[in-house]
C-alpha cells in the first residue's frame, strides 16, 4: 500500500539519537488515526492460533487493528482471514466469538458467504438483480497476506509486505521459543480454551513497549513478589533456571521487534524448576534435557517477554502466553490474551500451568493488575496541554548495545544490550519507537524493508542485522 503524505509531518516526534519520544504520539487523536493507516494496514498482525480452527467450518472472530476479522477454515481445509463486514452494506457478518458453520449469513439483507469467502447466497438474485450482479466480485474482503508459522496465524493487509519470515528476520530464533514445545519440538504448542478480552484505558503502545523489555519496572511488581505466586512457591516466576545466566536485551531496530532473554553459561546443565509439583518438575526437567540435545548451543537461551512490532507481545514460559494490544482509540486498548501449553504435556502439567496462568495474567492476575494501573495513569497524566509538551525519556543504556554479541562461541542475532550488571536498559524501547517512526514516515514497503539496502526509512544506517535471516 502506498501512502501519499508529507513524511515531515511526523519527524521530530521520535528523537532516536537522544532517546526522547514526544508524548503526542500516545495521546494525539490525529496521530492515532494516522497509525491506523500507516501501521495497522501494513504490518503483520497476530490473528490467532491454528488450533482454534482445527476442523473445516471452524471460525474464530479476531481483530486486526480496530477492525473485526474472521479467521476460519474452509471446507477444503484451507485457512483464511476476512474482514468481518458484509460487502453489501457493511453489516458485521458474524457476531459470534467462535464456532463452526457451513456459511456466514448476513443478518441485514441475507447475503451469504461460504467459508472460503465467496458470495454464495443473494436473496432474489434472479428477480431483483436480474442475475446481473457478478457474485465473484462481492465475496468477503480477504486479507491478502496470511501465514501459519508454527501454529501462529499472522496476517497483513499489505500485498507488498515482505514474507512473514523476512518481517521477523533474526527474531525467529526467539519467537521459536514461544511456539515450539518446551522440549524443542517444532510448533509443539496448543491454545487452552478461553481467550481473555478486556479493556485498558491506555494507549496501545504502553503495553507494547512494556513487553518489549522493560526490566526496569520490576519494582512495580513488588506486591506479587512478596506474596509469591511462582511455580516454585516464590516470587512470581521460578528464576532458578536462570542461575548464572546473563541478562540480555535483544532487539532489531530495522524491524522493531525485541525481547529480553537470559543466556545460560556455556557449561550450564538443566536444573529442576516448577518445584511446587513433582510431576510438573519432572516433565520440565525431561523437556530441558531433550531440548538441550536437540538445540545444542541455542538451548542456552531462555526466553523472556517480547514484542513483535507493532502489537503482539508474548511471554514464552512463565506464564506462556500471547497478548495482542488492539487499538480502540488513542485512550483505550482492548487486550486479548491467548495461553499456550505443550500439546503433548500430560494433563497434570496442563492443569498446573492453567492455574498459574490465571493467577498471573490478565485482569484477575496478581501480576498484570499492577501493570495496567501504571499504563492507565501514565497515559491519563500525559494528556494535558502542558503534560503533552514533554517528552518521555528512553536514554537508559544508550550507546552500550552491540551488533555482534558473542558468548562462549554463541553468536546471537540482533542488537544486544547486556543488562546483567546494569539490570535494565531501554535499547528495546528505542528500537520500538525507531520502527514506529519508520512506519509513520515510509511511503511503502520498499522504504520499510530497509534491511534490503542497509538503510531504514528514517535514513539512518540499519543496525543490528546481526545474524538476521539465518
Amino acid at each position: 500500500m502506498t501512502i501519499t503524505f508529507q513524511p515531515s509531518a511526523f519527524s521530530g516526534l521520535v528523537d532516536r539519537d537522544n532517546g526522547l519520544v514526544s508524548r503526542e504520539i500516545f495521546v494525539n487523536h490525529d496521530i492515532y488515526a494516522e497509525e491506523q493507516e500507516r501501521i495497522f494496514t501494513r504490518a503483520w498482525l497476530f490473528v490467532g492460533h491454528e488450533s482454534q480452527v482445527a476442523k473445516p467450518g471452524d471460525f474464530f472472530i479476531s481483530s486486526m487493528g480496530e477492525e473485526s476479522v474472521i479467521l476460519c477454515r474452509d471446507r477444503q481445509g484451507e485457512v483464511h482471514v476476512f474482514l468481518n463486514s458484509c460487502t453489501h452494506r457493511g453489516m458485521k457478518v458474524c457476531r459470534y466469538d467462535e464456532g463452526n458453520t457451513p456459511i456466514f449469513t448476513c443478518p441485514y439483507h441475507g447475503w451469504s458467504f461460504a467459508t472460503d469467502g465467496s458470495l454464495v447466497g443473494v436473496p432474489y438474485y434472479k428477480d431483483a438483480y436480474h442475475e446481473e450482479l457478478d457474485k465473484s466480485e462481492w465475496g468477503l474482503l480477504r486479507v491478502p497476506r496470511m501465514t501459519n508459522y508454527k501454529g501462529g496465524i499472522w496476517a497483513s493487509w499489505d500485498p507488498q509486505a515482505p514474507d512473514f519470515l523476512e518481517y521477523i528476520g533474526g527474531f525467529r530464533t526467539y519467537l521459536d521459543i514461544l511456539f515450539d514445545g518446551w522440549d524443542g519440538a517444532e510448533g509443539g504448542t496448543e491454545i487452552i480454551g478461553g481467550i481473555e478480552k478486556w479493556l485498558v484505558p491506555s494507549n496501545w503502545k504502553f503495553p507494547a513497549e512494556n513487553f518489549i523489555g522493560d526490566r526496569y519496572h520490576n519494582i512495580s511488581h513488588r506486591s506479587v513478589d512478596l506474596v509469591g505466586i511462582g511455580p516454585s512457591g516464590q516470587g512470581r516466576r521460578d528464576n532458578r533456571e536462570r542461575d548464572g545466566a546473563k541478562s540480555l536485551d535483544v532487539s532489531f531496530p530495522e524491524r522493531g521487534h525485541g525481547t529480553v532473554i537470559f543466556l545460560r553459561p556455556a557449561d550450564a546443565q538443566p536444573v529442576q524448576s516448577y518445584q511446587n509439583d513433582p510431576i510438573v518438575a519432572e516433565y520440565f526437567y525431561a523437556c530441558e534435557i531433550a531440548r538441550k540435545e536437540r538445540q545444542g548451543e541455542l538451548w542456552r537461551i531462555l526466553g523472556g517477554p517480547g514484542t513483535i512490532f507493532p502489537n503482539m507481545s508474548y511471554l514464552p514460559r512463565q506464564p506462556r502466553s500471547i497478548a495482542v494490544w488492539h487499538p480502540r482509540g488513542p485512550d483505550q486498548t482492548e487486550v486479548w490474551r491467548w495461553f499456550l501449553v505443550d500439546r503433548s504435556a500430560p494433563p497434570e502439567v496442563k492443569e498446573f500451568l492453567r492455574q498459574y496462568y490465571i493467577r498471573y495474567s490478565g485482569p484477575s492476575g496478581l501480576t498484570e493488575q499492577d501493570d495496567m494501573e501504571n499504563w492507565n495513569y501514565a497515559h491519563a497524566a500525559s494528556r494535558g496541554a502542558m503534560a503533552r509538551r514533554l517528552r518521555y525519556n528512553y536514554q537508559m543504556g544508550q550507546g552500550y548495545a552491540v551488533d555482534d554479541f558473542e558468548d562462549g562461541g554463541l553468536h546471537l542475532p540482533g542488537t544486544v544490550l547486556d543488562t546483567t550488571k546494569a539490570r535494565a536498559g531501554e535499547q528495546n524501547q528505542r528500537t520500538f519507537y525507531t520502527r514506529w517512526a519508520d512506519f509513520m514516515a515510509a511511503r511503502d514497503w520498499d522504504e520499510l524493508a530497509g534491511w534490503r539496502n542497509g538503510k531504514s526509512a528514517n535514513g539512518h544506517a540499519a543496525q543490528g542485522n546481526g545474524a538476521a535471516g539465518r
Partner: protein
Amino acid sequence: MADIVNLMELESGQAVRLDNDATAEIVSNPGDGVWLFVRYLSHPDDPAQVGVEDMVFAQVITEVLSE
C-alpha cells in the same frame, strides 16, 4: 397463506414448497434461519431443475410439506 416457517426448526429430509410452486427436499440446513440447501422434487416453471441442488431463501418458502 401458510404460517411463516422458522427455518431453524427444519431438518434434512423434510420437504418444502416454494412460492413458484416448486417443491424441494432439504439436503442440509445451515442453521442460519435464512437459507436452506435443497434438491428440487418438482419444478413447474422449469422441469429440468428436478434433482438439481440449490440454496433457497427463507422468504420464498411457503410451506413445510412433511414432518
